[in-house]
């Protein structure tokens, strides 16, 4: 702890204390020289003149000594920092050797702490800080059911949504999706595999402002014609196509 205090002192000693140190030292020097010269038989005035001449241009000297002191402090602070870091590392290694179990436990605690913080940050960043990856994200809202005697439910019944849809005067468009992921079986020439999917209903892509890259949009009339219509992501489409492409 002493080392850190010394380091802080070096860093914060600052200009004021350096110039005080310099001034006081120069004054003491001149006084001593004058006293010696007077003792040798010189008059006070003459002794002062002599002392000043021996010292050199006082103003310039002050400035030079002060800046030398500044360089000194910077240098010492660097050395002190390197020393304390080395000392801490040595202590750390020694502790680790003397009780590795406890050290590993400590490291794990740190790991968990950092991990949780990262997860929390990622969550906050994705959900609260970074906007949704759709055009006009500030115009997107999520609607929940609020019963008269309880907290908001994170879901909406199909019937309620139909009612909202009918009586809506606020929203440009709305859609409903199921929060339950639903695996979809996909079959191609090589066989079948499952892919994660979600059921959506209403003008879902229109509401998000995501146009179709290819094919038909699942508008209400299109879905009425083909209730099992599926929309795949561009990445999925590319991957499946890439896998299908014969190896060259």
């Amino acid at each position, binding site marked *: 702890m002493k080392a850190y205090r010394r380091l802080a002192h070096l860093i914060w000693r600052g200009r004021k204390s350096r110039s005080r140190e310099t001034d006081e030292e120069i004054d003491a020097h001149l006084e*001593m020289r004058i006293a010696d010269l007077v003792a040798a038989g010189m008059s006070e005035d003459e002794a002062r003149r002599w002392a000043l001449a021996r010292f050199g241009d006082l103003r310039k000297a002050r400035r030079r000594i002060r800046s030398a002191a500044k360089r000194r402090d*910077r240098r*010492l602070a660097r050395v002190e920092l390197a020393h304390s870091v080395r000392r801490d590392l040595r202590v750390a290694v020694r502790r680790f050797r003397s009780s590795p179990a406890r050290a590993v436990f400590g490291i794990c605690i740190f790991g968990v702490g950092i991990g949780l913080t990262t997860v929390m940050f990622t969550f906050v960043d994705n959900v609260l800080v970074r906007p949704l990856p759709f055009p006009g994200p500030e115009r997107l809202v999520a609607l929940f059911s609020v019963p008269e005697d309880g907290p908001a439910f994170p879901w909406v019944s199909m019937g309620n949504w139909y009612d909202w849809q009918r009586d809506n005067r606020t929203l440009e468009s709305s859609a409903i999706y199921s929060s339950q992921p639903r695996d979809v079986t996909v079959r191609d020439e090589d066989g079948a595999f499952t892919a994660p999917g979600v059921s959506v209903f209403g003008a879902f892509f229109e509401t998000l402002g995501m146009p179709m890259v290819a094919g038909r949009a699942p508008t209400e009339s299109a879905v009425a014609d083909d209730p099992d219509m599926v929309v795949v992501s561009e990445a999925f489409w590319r991957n499946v196509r890439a896998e299908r492409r014969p190896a060259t």
Partner: protein
Amino acid sequence: MSDTLPLLKGTLDLLILKALSVEPMHGYGLSVWMERGSNGQILVEDSAIYQALRRLEGKRFVEAEWGVTENNRRARYYRLTALGRRHLGDEARTWRQYVHWVGELLEAGDGAPS
């Protein structure tokens, strides 16, 4: 001061370290030590001593502490550190070799040094 010897670069630091290897001194003491020891031949501006002292402090060759003189005056006393003592040994050796060989070359006359 025209009939004094100019101080070669780096010599001042060496002389200060030497003086402090005997006992801790303040800046004025160092000035007097040099003047008396060289019979008044080596004179530096006193301010140069203080600049050199700051430099030596930065290199951790000397350490300073406020103390009181015989006449009850506050003064900053400088003390040689172990690092400074080692450095003094090295530097003094280099200096002696340097002086020796410069002397040899100057004595050599026209030809190569004997």
